[in-house]
């Protein structure tokens, strides 16, 4: 009898352990840049909630860090290979490429076919290396020229200038009216590149810019010199906020929203913040005019599918993490689009209601694009990107001439 009782008790104990194991919750960690001030913050919260609801027993621990600090954090974690999350936000091309090269990222080829119908192959190019998929792109951005039409009207302009000559004239008119033409953060060098790259692509064309990034063509090109000279001309003519060098991008964006600048040229991810601000009805989005019509067209643009989720190779749950990355990516693509924050990489409902009018305008620009080259600091490797940004900073400060910019980059990067 005692034996039977002890066997029964043991069986109950084993069963309770099994059920405890069965009910154990799996937690996937996700690192992203979607801090509270990020326009995708709410989209991430909603995406995680939707995934958790559809997958009982799975939780996602979301850890957010602001843009620049995030780059340091993810690189340090990738270097040590310890404490890595299961899923992480990344930019495509050079940024993710270095992690892929080091074997830190999970190959997603086995999982992609399930979602291929909704995530077109053309959108995965910036996260595909040697023909294999390593990332789930969820939104794309371009460099957009936001214009405060009220201020432009005060200076006598009814629309965004369509030619470079008109743009210069418009800036002079704005200055004469006591309005600062452009807002830019000189403290965050990538913000300066949002002005330089459109000038370069509209001087030499997309194909050549891509060749330069790939190391096939040289930086020491007359078109690059022309673009940098035009940029420096805008600086010396005081078209930028004189406080630019001391301002961060958030401050500049807020200044634009507060009506301090006529133009703000930055990533189209700002649609969310600008679109929900009071200023929104007076804002028009466009693109910087062509500098050299012989080589470039108005609709050659900087940008592309870039915001991406990837899975670390060290994850304990590769299948679940890959599924989460795709499901979250799909949700984010749609949520970012409908909230007016960004353009989708996944097929979107053409009749979906979007929160502001800026996104359809940007979508229209993308639809008309002749060519699109990814942001330089994402395209290039970390070391090359920082050298490149350094040179842009020096050009902005007037420490080097346009010729020295081209020669210097050619000698250091080519």
């Amino acid at each position, binding site marked *: 009898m005692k034996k039977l009782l002890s066997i029964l008790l043991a069986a109950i104990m084993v069963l309770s352990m099994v059920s405890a194991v069965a009910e154990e919750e799996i937690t996937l960690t996700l690192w992203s840049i979607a801090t509270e001030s990020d326009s995708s913050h709410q989209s991430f919260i909603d995406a995680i909630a939707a995934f958790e609801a559809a997958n009982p027993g799975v939780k996602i621990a979301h850890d957010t860090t602001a843009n620049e600090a995030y780059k340091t954090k993810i690189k340090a974690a990738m270097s040590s290979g310890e404490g890595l999350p299961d899923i992480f936000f990344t930019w495509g091309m050079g940024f993710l490429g270095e992690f892929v090269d080091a074997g830190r990222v999970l190959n997603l080829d086995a999982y992609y076919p399930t979602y291929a119908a909704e995530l077109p192959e053309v959108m995965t190019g910036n996260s595909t290396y040697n023909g294999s998929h390593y990332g789930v792109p969820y939104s794309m951005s371009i460099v957009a020229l936001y214009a405060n039409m009220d201020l432009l009207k005060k200076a006598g302009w009814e629309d965004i200038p369509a030619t470079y000559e008109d743009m210069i004239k418009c800036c002079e008119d704005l200055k004469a009216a006591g309005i600062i033409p452009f807002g830019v953060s000189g403290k965050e060098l990538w913000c300066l590149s949002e002005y330089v790259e459109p000038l370069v692509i509209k001087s030499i064309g997309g194909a050549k810019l891509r060749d330069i990034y790939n190391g096939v063509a040289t930086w020491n090109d007359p078109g690059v010199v022309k673009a940098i000279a035009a940029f420096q001309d805008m600086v010396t003519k005081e078209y930028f906020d004189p*406080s630019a*060098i001391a301002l961060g991008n958030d401050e500049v964006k807020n200044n634009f929203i507060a009506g301090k600048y006529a133009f703000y040229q930055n990533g189209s991810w700002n649609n969310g913040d600008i679109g929900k601000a009071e200023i929104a009805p007076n804002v028009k989005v466009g693109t910087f005019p062509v500098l050299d019509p012989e080589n470039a067209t108005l609709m050659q643009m900087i940008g592309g599918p870039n915001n991406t989720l990837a899975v670390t190779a060290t994850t304990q749950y590769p299948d679940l993490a890959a599924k989460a990355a795709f499901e979250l990516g799909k949700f984010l693509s749609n949520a970012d689009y409908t909230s007016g924050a960004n353009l989708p990489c996944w097929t979107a409902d053409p009749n979906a209601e979007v929160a502001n009018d800026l996104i359809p305008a940007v979508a229209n620009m993308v639809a008309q694009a002749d060519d699109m080259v990814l942001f330089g600091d994402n395209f290039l490797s970390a070391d090359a990107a920082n*050298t490149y940004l350094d040179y842009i900073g020096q050009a902005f*400060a007037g420490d080097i001439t346009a010729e020295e910019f081209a020669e210097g980059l050619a000698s250091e990067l080519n």
Partner: protein
Amino acid sequence: MKKSFGYKLNIFLFLLPALILFIGVLIAPIFMSLSYSFTEWNGLKDPIFIGLDNYKELFTSKSINIMRALKNSLLLAGLSVFIQLTFALWLALKLGKKPVGERAYLSIFFMPVLISTVVIGQLWLKIYNPDYGVLNLALKSLGLESWTRVWLGDKKTVLWACFVPILWQYVGYHMLLMYAGIKGVPTELCEAAMLDGCTEGQLNRYIIIPYIKPILRVSVIFAVTGSLKSFDLIYVLTNGGPNHATEVPSTLMINLLFLRNRYGMGSTIAVMLIVLCFVFALLINLVFKEEK
């Protein structure tokens, strides 16, 4: 003999945990940094041995420009010794005379040391803000509008604008060290000197300052090595910008390590900083020893 050996073994065994900790936390990382400094390593792939190439590049590369960073650090070290420590000594001597509200003054001057550097950085960012900062507003209200500027953006002023809060933050720290030393000066020594007709200035010069020289030496070592290693406030205020105008070796190291993925070169700067700190500490010791 046996007893003596057992006694020494006991000492060794008791010291062993601390020794292991010391080697593991301090000595081993220094040697690891030294070994990485001879490699080309992006932190992801295996390091490649390249001998002294990083050292050659460090002192010849225009894009790294270590000499500019070193010049900034040495300037800060000079200012720390000649302005910060002089002011701290003056405060300590004044407080050593037991003025009314001595404790209150001590707390007030020491307060910046207790505040987080990030908070201090944010505070000074607001002070220097070109649009609503107290500094520009004060100048405008005094009719000195032409003096207003973008303090952290103008290359002529940014270095000094960064040095002011750094010097301000640690005045209280050095003052407290010196104040403690002054409090240790025997009262009878001061009274005897006063009876002999010593003025206050003479008392400070011939009695108190020589008496606290060991503390002054420590303060100078802290000020100089602290300046060479300075990072946090500069990182918050300018992150080495604009255009590297406020770059110091530590900000350069962080940039190379975490933004450019150049772990070999970052380690080279780390090794250079360790060597410089040791050399300066030895030199300062030598100067104070000679004077002794």
